[in-house]
């Protein structure tokens, strides 16, 4: 019987063939990273939980392998408070002491900078203390978000415990996107079909011609949102595009990987990319997805049968727009959004925040005149961080706000007031909406 990507990677790490359902007592991992929210408590946790054990062996507290661990201050930087600043200090001190890489504030978002830096390669088992660690699945890696304690365990021993090999759902993508339709629209469509819990306990494997034709920037957007249908993670094979991306970049040996033709899947879904149109997810969950042509119907539906996670939306008016986050603020996202923005102004009633996902993206977009397009149009371009996505920094929403965002979560209260309404869409749709001051179709600008 053939194996899925997940089964292959776990088999190699576990040192024996495994299939879905098997439990691995101790699974060695290969990469581990922390952000500024969980990094500081994890560093303290390492000493608290394991300090005694190290001491008994006459050793200082030490991490399992300094080359495989990264700290990335991204959520609330440049530090928004004394607590955050001190947390960043702690990560820096720990990095010096242990010889572990700590990024600088403004270097970018965790799920972007490690990939850019060539630190993630196919066959990796990646743990990050953030649910969007699944983004790294686009690299042919098995990537899981974990909490603080599992992060601390891994810091000490380099293992994940009692790991149950998950089943996989296979998403076969065919065809090519029409004008103004992107990988964000595809993943919003899929989440809408699957529901918030539709991929629960299973891995979403994305394959097919549709994937093969996609750039790495486009692929990461898809894997990023696998968790929004409760996927254990998202994953893609390693093909020529990924191989080319890693050339001269990879810090570790690169070996291709793909699932076997006779691998067993829990379920399958095929999506023809050419059948999609721009999508918008309504508040308060990503699964409330609708094609842009049906926004009015969706508003009417929200008023007819409001529920706690699908509240009544009273208008299509937009007060805030955000182009950023680990989902959609990579180079190509900015290029596409700038195509829409060029020759237009941000609507006078809209606050438009643009945050490139990393310093590298920022610099390239600046050098190529892309940032200038947004700045001249009246947007606020900020240094790289999570921005309003995290709800505490650079554009927190008031109770009256209706935000359209290129990020991945529109939960109630996620970006500020619990009364605020958040819509999710592609960078192009966000920008078109920022121009019009209402939910808009980007295709007429392209």
């Amino acid at each position, binding site marked *: 019987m053939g194996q899925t990507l997940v089964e292959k990677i776990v088999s190699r790490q576990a040192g024996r063939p495994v299939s879905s359902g098997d439990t691995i007592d101790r699974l060695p991992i290969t990469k581990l990273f922390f952000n500024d929210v969980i990094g500081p408590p994890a560093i303290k946790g390492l000493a608290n939980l394991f300090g005694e*054990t190290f001491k008994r062996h006459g050793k200082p507290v030490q991490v399992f392998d300094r080359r495989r661990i990264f700290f990335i201050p991204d959520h609330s930087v440049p530090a928004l408070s004394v607590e955050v600043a001190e947390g960043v200090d702690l990560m820096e001190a720990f990095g010096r002491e242990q010889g572990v890489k700590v990024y600088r504030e403004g270097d970018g978002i965790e799920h972007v900078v490690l990939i850019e830096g060539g630190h993630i390669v196919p066959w990796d088992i990646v743990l990050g203390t953030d649910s969007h660690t699944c983004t790294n699945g686009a690299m042919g890696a098995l990537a899981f978000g974990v909490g603080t*304690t599992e992060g601390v365990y891994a810091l000490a021993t380099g293992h994940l415990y009692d790991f149950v090999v998950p089943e996989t759902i296979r998403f076969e993508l065919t065809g090519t996107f029409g004008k103004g339709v992107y990988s964000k629209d595809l993943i919003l469509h899929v989440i809408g079909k699957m529901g918030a819990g539709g991929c629960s306990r299973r891995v979403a494997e994305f394959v097919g011609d549709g994937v093969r034709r996609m750039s790495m920037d486009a692929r990461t957007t898809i894997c990023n949102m696998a968790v929004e249908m409760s996927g254990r993670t998202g994953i893609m094979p390693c093909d020529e595009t990924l191989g080319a991306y890693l050339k001269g970049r990879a810090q570790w040996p690169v070996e291709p990987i793909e699932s076997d033709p006779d691998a067993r899947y829990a379920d399958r879904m095929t999506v023809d990319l050419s059948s999609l149109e721009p999508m918008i997810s309504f508040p308060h969950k990503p699964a409330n997805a609708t094609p842009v042509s049906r926004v009015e119907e969706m508003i009417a539906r929200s008023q007819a049968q409001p529920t706690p996670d699908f509240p009544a939306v009273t208008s299509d008016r937009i007060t805030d727009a955000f182009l950023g986050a680990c989902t959609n603020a990579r180079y190509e996202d900015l290029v596409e959004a700038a195509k829409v923005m060029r020759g237009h102004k941000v609507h006078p009633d809209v606050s438009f925040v643009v945050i490139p996902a990393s310093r590298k993206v920022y610099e390239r977009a600046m050098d190529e005149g892309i940032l200038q397009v947004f700045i001249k149009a009246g947007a606020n371009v900020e240094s790289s961080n999570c921005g309003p996505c995290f709800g505490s920094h650079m554009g927190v929403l008031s109770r009256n706000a209706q935000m359209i965002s290129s990020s991945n979560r529109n939960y109630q209260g996620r970006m500020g007031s619990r009364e605020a309404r958040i819509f999710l869409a592609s960078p192009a749709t966000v920008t078109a909406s920022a121009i019009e001051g209402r939910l808009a179709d980007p295709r007429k600008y392209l």
Partner: protein
Amino acid sequence: MLTGAVTSVFGNDINTDDIIPAMYLIKSDDPEYFATYAFVKFDPDFRTRCLKSQANIIVAGKNFACGSSREQAVYTLQFNRVVCVIAQSFPDIFYRNCLANGLPLVTLEDTSGLALDDQLEIDLDAGLIRNRTRNTSHQFQMKTDDRRTFQAGGMTARVRAHLEEILTRQG
């Protein structure tokens, strides 16, 4: 044996942002700090209800505590004296965080027999919920490994033993 009162009944897809909003996460690394802000944007009355009972049980629909991996969601519940969550399903990250911290999670396909204020006894060994208020009982499945981890209050002891092995090998 776990005993307590059902003090909250929630629907499907409650997320960890609902349990503890992001903005509080960066204010403290003391696990107890978050308890005050439990469900503050989603169900502001949650904490008041929890304070009235010595042991709280949450009953929820599908996919309870989806979304962000923040383990603070687990502390938020534990420091509000939540002793068990019974839901139709749980996503993996939250489930694993609860294993690590020893907060027992019971998966029950049909939760309709459980209501607010019911007094429950939960026997993890027998896989049985006894509803003292209604004189009914419900059976549930739990993997043996998970049951042991919940009962041991988490995985730390095992990981310590593993670290011992590693350090001994290193000499």
